[in-house]
């Protein structure tokens, strides 16, 4: 087969893609289970914070129009936990989890990943602010914090989305 013919080029590209595809599927078979395992363990570790020792299950289909809710989990007989991703001051956003007991009170609030401005937005993750949230119920809005307007607004929007789902689920 001549090097310049279309057939040669086609065969070369095709063989190369097939070879790469096979290698990738092999590596994927090795690494994918580990990745999934790590992901579930991380989520479970976070869920345990709210209701240690409870039975957790994930809710797959939920109707969320805001796009902020990234995960919904049920703690059997105890409450609901919501994983939210919102954008405060930092454009890459931050994630946090909020849990509502079955009676509607806030069971817990914890940041997962955040990079807000230290001394300003990060005050929303200090015990002083978090204690204020723990006093709330599903009907209340999270308080705004002066000097941390964007971050606390983002938390308010996130919790509003979570409580909307909570009310809908009841």
């Amino acid at each position: 087969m001549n090097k310049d013919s279309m057939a040669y080029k086609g065969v070369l590209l095709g063989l190369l893609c097939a070879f790469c595809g096979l290698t990738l599927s092999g590596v994927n078979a090795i690494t994918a289970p580990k990745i999934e395992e790590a992901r579930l363990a991380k989520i479970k570790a976070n869920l345990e914070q709210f209701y240690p020792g409870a039975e957790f299950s994930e809710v797959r289909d939920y109707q969320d129009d805001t796009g902020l809710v990234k995960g919904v989990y049920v703690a059997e007989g105890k409450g609901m936990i919501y994983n939210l991703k919102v954008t405060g001051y930092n454009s890459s956003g931050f994630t946090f989890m909020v849990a509502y007991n079955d009676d509607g009170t806030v069971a817990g609030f914890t940041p997962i990943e955040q990079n807000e401005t230290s001394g300003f937005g990060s005050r929303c993750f200090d015990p002083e602010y978090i204690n204020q949230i723990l006093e709330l119920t599903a009907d209340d809005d999270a308080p705004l914090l002066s000097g941390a307007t964007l971050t606390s607004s983002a938390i308010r929007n996130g919790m509003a989305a979570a409580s909307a789902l909570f009310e809908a689920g009841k």
Partner: protein
Amino acid sequence: MNLFTIFISALLINNVILSKFLGMCPFMGVSTKLDSAVGMGLAVTFVIFGASVISWFLYYYALVPLGLEYMELICFILLIASFVQFVEMFVKKSSPGLYKSLGIFLPLITTNCAVLYVAQDNITQGYSLIETMVNSVAVPLGFMLMLVIFATIRERLNGNDVPESFRGNPIAFIVAAIMAIAFTAFAGLV
């Protein structure tokens, strides 16, 4: 997510150059003159829009049903390379002047980080087709906005007394630093 929010945040708040640092390589090369900046911006907008929409379809209608999500990177980058090749042929035939002024930068759009990023970001964020289209237009428009602003600044910078070791690209990065501060004013707009 609201289409308007996506548009404004991709254009101004999370500007692809100042906030996400993507598309810097061609940016430094092309932002020296205004007319090549506009031409490049339009070319990149077309490429990103076309490539992102096609890759959206490729992902959801070919890769996901076949369970081949891990082939995403290879398929996307091959798609982008072919699309740029096609655009290059088209521009060469339809407007040779534009082709000549863009020069080497037209095939280099393949290696523009922004193109691959937008294609992948649409999937990561789980956008629908309409949201993908809006995002894929807003991001390169942000790129073009920055190109035009920079070209006007750099054209004036050329005549000024820049310290010897800062001439060329280093002073452009200082300009970018100041613009980054300016654009943080848009945080919290939507």
